[in-house]
């Protein structure tokens, strides 16, 4: 039996870099999908609005774990073999897309209606309105909750260890299987998650304060 030492700690840290990579990929892909759903949710077409609302409701009402199982075990049974990293990225991206869509829809809706009217009156097309007037303001509004959601995303990446992908969590479990020093190992693993998440939480809260201050001014 090995004991918990520097090589093990290094192994865990390498897992942490995969956790960050996974978060970034899920955020970028999930953000792209989520952005489309946010705009669909606000579309003039009732059908598009319904589809987007349904998608968001369903994804937010099932465990991320089930999304992961469906894309990994489910698809592999159907003959589509996804490598663990792909399955993990895909399911986390799907999960993120629903929450980001909802956050961003809220942000877009909190841009005053008059901004739409004023820009429409200046003959801007709908895409132009989004690009030049609405999105620049909505993005500012969305920053605090978006950063806050990143914390949720980082934490949720921990479940992908179940498909064998060696992220921070799985690295900790593997070291535990070799050393049986669970207390120290999971303290370290928890501390690393905390080191990633806590600054993001503080940043989110700070941005919110800045935003509130500039709104009342």
């Amino acid at each position, binding site marked *: 039996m090995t004991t918990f030492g520097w090589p093990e700690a290094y192994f865990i840290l390498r897992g942490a870099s995969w956790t960050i990579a996974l978060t970034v990929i899920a955020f970028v892909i999930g953000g792209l999908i989520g952005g489309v759903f946010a705009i669909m949710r606000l579309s003039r077409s009732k059908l598009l609005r319904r589809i987007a609302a349904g998608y968001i409701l369903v994804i937010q009402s099932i465990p991320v774990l*089930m999304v992961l199982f469906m894309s990994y*075990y489910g698809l592999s049974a159907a003959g589509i073999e996804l490598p663990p990293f792909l399955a993990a990225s895909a399911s986390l991206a799907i999960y993120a897309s629903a929450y980001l869509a909802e956050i961003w829809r809220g942000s877009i809706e909190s841009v005053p209606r008059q901004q739409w009217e004023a820009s429409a009156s200046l003959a801007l097309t709908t895409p132009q309105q989004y690009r030049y007037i609405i999105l620049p303001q909505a993005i500012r509004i969305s920053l605090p909750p978006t950063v806050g959601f990143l914390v949720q995303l980082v934490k949720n990446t921990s479940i992908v260890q*179940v498909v064998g992908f060696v992220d921070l969590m799985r690295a900790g479990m593997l070291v535990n299987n070799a050393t049986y020093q669970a207390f120290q190992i999971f303290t370290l693993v928890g501390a690393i998650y*905390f080191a990633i998440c806590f600054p993001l939480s503080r940043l989110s809260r700070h941005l919110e304060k800045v935003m509130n201050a500039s709104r009342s001014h």
Partner: protein
Amino acid sequence: MLFQDVISRWPMILNGVMLTLTLSFVAIGLGIVLATLLTGLRSLAGAWAGYIVDAYVELMRNTPFLVQLFMIFFGLPQIGIRMNGLEASLLAMTLNLAAYSTEIIRAGVDSIHKSQIEAGLALAMSKRQVLQYVVLQPAFARVWPALSSQFVLMMLASSICSFVSVQELSGTAAIIEADTFRSFETYIVVTLIYLVLALSLKLFLNWLGHRIFPQVSGLARLDTKAEAA
């Protein structure tokens, strides 16, 4: 696709559903009580108590539920505290939910104007009575929607307890999947059940909110966003 193999195991699935619901409701009940105590401690006891509560809340909110669960299930035995998967799950869920709920309830309490408390004291209420009737009740009414979302998220997160061999709904799914080799069918059925559970729980909590806080519609609701556990 063959759903028969999966659906024919419905008694097992039903057991899983019951365990998921039991875990969730017990954790919700204990979590609220603990969160209320922590909120009270934070505002009534000295500054140091406040720091400890804050540290606890931040610690729980900034680490994954899975790490918390493993810490309790695998880590604590090393210092002599042993429990089975079910007990560890209940403890982890309660501690996790309590931290999020403390944060939500705090926002509700902060929204109660100081003059309300002064008015209560001026009416000869005791400090405890003011806390109960003037602060906590209206605060809870305001944040009930946010708490409800948090409860639903906790129910969904309870699926993670299958990692410590608890036979709740997703744990059941793993067994059926291993039995039948019908992965896709199994997970579709179980996902649909989660969907129904989440939507029903949401409706139930809405209804409950209107029952216990009849004034809920009259109060400005706080737009505190629930967050995934």
